């Protein structure tokens, strides 16, 4: 017995020592002094292999031009939960994208790296659209990200469903009354949802409701900073809610499912189940990359604006940020990558053409409607460079591209943006799922909640 025990003890000790040695040997060795390795968010999970291949081409180009930087692509899409978990575990990619609404909050909370020095050193820094750069700047003037794209909200519609319903796809609706009528017609003649609005409780419902409110001339906040006041219960929001209430319960033109978020509504649209919906003007990229949309069905136009001085279209965009604990070598490398991959193709002809060529070769969309990062002149110039490579149905996008620059662009509510949207989520859900929802009462409650959250965040 004793010798068995002794043998067992020895075996256990030796095994654990061996395991420790193996673990130690397989631990990543630190990079040599010359090269800096940065991990960059590549594409959102679920992207097509062609899109992934295109990205790897770009990485190869960059590494060739910068031999001292190694780039490791990582599939990462920024979301609140995964960001927090990765931040705590220190497994964030060095470079990742963040929407406008979140970047400032994160920057103010110290959860993004301070890139002021590196960004100010970029050659085109002074030419950046100040409104767009403001979205990346905290209240104390720290620049925490570089804008990579700006967009305006748009009304996307399915040309095929329009035709099936007896509507002219080249004449999309130009007023909210028309949207209502067209939705009813599509629902009646094709059985699909004529108009769908995001209704998921992940802030997208509030985001689209805010879009509709802006188009009618309302605002969700007044004032700024610590003296900002919540105005969720403005009359235009009530009008917007009454409109979807009518479409949902009276016309029955919104289908039977109302909990769509940003990605599932794109999926439903690409699958041909949605007549019209509102989302950012840049979703065509996602429709192609993740949902393999048939280009022939896609149409986009501007959101109808009310005849009021305050009516405008909600703008948004994406920024590229760096993880807060990156050292200065990593930050410099990161900004170089951001400059190369995201911005160069907008300011340098050769890079624009090279980028467009490889996108086309991998069947990725070129020429998706966006807003200028610098100014309209630069934007138009960049578009002429890539004109021969544009492979999106620009004619089908004309109703949007021809009218968007005549619309007033309004930034998102500045204080506690996501909290404002979240307070509105439940209102939208209530209206869409409860026939007897009391809109005035719901808006008042949402306003109180939002005001409290705004006060706590400043």
């Amino acid at each position: 017995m004793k010798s068995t025990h002794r043998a067992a003890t020895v075996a256990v000790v030796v095994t654990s020592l061996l395991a420790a040695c193996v673990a130690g040997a397989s631990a990543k060795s630190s990079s040599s002094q010359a090269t800096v390795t940065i991990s960059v968010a590549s594409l959102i999970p679920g992207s097509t292999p062609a899109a992934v291949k295109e990205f790897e081409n770009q990485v190869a180009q960059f590494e060739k031009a910068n031999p001292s930087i190694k780039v490791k692509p990582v599939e990462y899409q920024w979301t609140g939960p995964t960001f927090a978990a990765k931040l705590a575990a220190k497994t964030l990619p060095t470079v990742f994208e963040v929407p406008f609404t979140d970047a400032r909050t994160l920057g103010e909370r110290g959860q993004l790296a301070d890139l002021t020095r590196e960004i100010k050193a970029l050659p085109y820094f002074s030419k950046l659209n100040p409104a767009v750069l403001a979205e990346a700047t905290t209240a104390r003037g720290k620049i925490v990200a570089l804008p990579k794209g700006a967009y305006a909200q748009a009304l996307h519609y399915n040309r095929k469903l329009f035709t099936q319903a007896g509507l002219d796809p080249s004449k999309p609706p130009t007023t909210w009354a028309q949207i209502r009528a067209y939705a009813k017609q599509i629902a009646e003649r094709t059985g699909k949802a004529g108009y769908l609005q995001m209704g998921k409780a992940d802030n997208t419902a509030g985001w689209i409701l805010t879009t509709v409110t802006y188009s009618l001339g309302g605002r969700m906040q007044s004032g700024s900073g610590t003296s900002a006041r919540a105005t969720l219960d403005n009359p235009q929001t009530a009008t917007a809610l009454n409109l979807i209430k009518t479409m949902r319960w009276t016309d029955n033109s919104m289908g039977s499912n109302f909990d769509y978020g940003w990605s599932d509504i794109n999926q439903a649209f690409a699958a041909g189940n949605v007549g019209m919906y509102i989302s950012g003007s840049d979703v065509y990229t996602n429709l192609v990359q993740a949902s393999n949309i048939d280009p022939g069905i896609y149409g986009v136009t501007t959101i109808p604006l009310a005849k009021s001085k305050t009516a405008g279209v909600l703008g948004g965009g994406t920024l590229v940020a760096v993880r807060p604990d990156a050292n200065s070598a990593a930050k410099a490398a990161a900004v170089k990558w951001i400059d190369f991959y995201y911005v160069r193709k907008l300011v340098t002809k050769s890079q624009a053409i090279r980028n467009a060529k490889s996108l086309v070769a991998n069947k990725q969309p070129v020429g998706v409607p966006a807003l200028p990062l610098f100014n309209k002149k630069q934007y138009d110039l960049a578009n002429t460079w890539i004109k021969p490579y544009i492979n999106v149905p620009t004619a089908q996008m004309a109703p949007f591209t021809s009218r968007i620059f005549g619309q007033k662009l309004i930034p998102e509510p500045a204080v506690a943006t996501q909290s404002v949207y979240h307070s509105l989520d439940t209102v939208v859900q209530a209206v869409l799922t409860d026939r007897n929802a009391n809109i005035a009462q719901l808006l008042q409650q949402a306003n109180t909640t939002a005001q409290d959250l705004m006060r706590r965040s400043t």
Partner: protein
Amino acid sequence: MSAVDAIPGESTTPPAAAALREADLWRRPRRTPLTWARSGGLTTLLLILPMLLVFGAFSWYPIVQTVIMSLQSTNLVDPPTWVGLDNFRTVLEDPLLPKAIENTAYFAGLALLFGYPIPLAAAVLMSELRRFRGVYATLVYLPVVIPPVVAVLLWKTFYDGSSAGAFNTVLGWVGLGPYPWLQSASTAMPSLVLEATWANAGATVIIYLAALTSVNSELYEAASVDGASLWRKVWHITLPQLRGVLLVTMILQIIATAQVFLEPYLFTSGGPNNSTLTVLLLIYNYAFANSLGGDYGSAAALSLMLAAFLAVFSLVYLRLTRSWSTE
């Protein structure tokens, strides 16, 4: 003689054998650390060391960290600051908290009302079968084997609110529906309970089946002689005999349903108008949602409060049912 301590576990011996015992002492030494190590204590320790480390790292250390975090405010980048009981105050003042508690109680109550008797009924019926019992047991357990997330996503498509949805189509064949399922505040929670019952009943059925084999069949025979129907047999013999198991599965179910997160999160994200917002989902939202996120202190505080409540509840429950569960 008696200056020597008695060896633990050994009863006192008569004086005649004491001399023999003295001789024994030379062969069976006292238990000291060295003898403990020599007799295999070290091996035992080394073998349970991995388990201790794993539990320590993944269970006990996070619990300690949660307690600490509930008293702090942090942004996960800079060192945290101590804020005392502020987080608990914030949580208690949140207007969503009563709603979350109410919804959780509703879920637990529905699960108890419908989800609790079903596995028992199934087990009783299955134990009456002579043949194919194994087939039924396998079928009943299959839903448990399906990964929970997959099951929820599957059911989400089944719960499509239009008349073309899977469930609505089937119900339409017998003239029922179409029902809104997840699209209405009144039907969302029952839909969640339905899926949760389907996914989890199988495990309990297997437990009950095993417990039923321990019921003395002579009792049933005696009851048959007295002319008892199946229902009376179940009520007067099966249930009392299974008392212990039933009480344990009841408290386990209550604890599990009080912590429900997966179904509300994946099905409805808190449901139409907060109707499926549960306490766990609220904790999740405090920590991770809508980039206000990062109120990890409040999340930790609410987690602690829930754990404390369940601990107290369990103690009270076990106390009250102690007399019932003993034969």
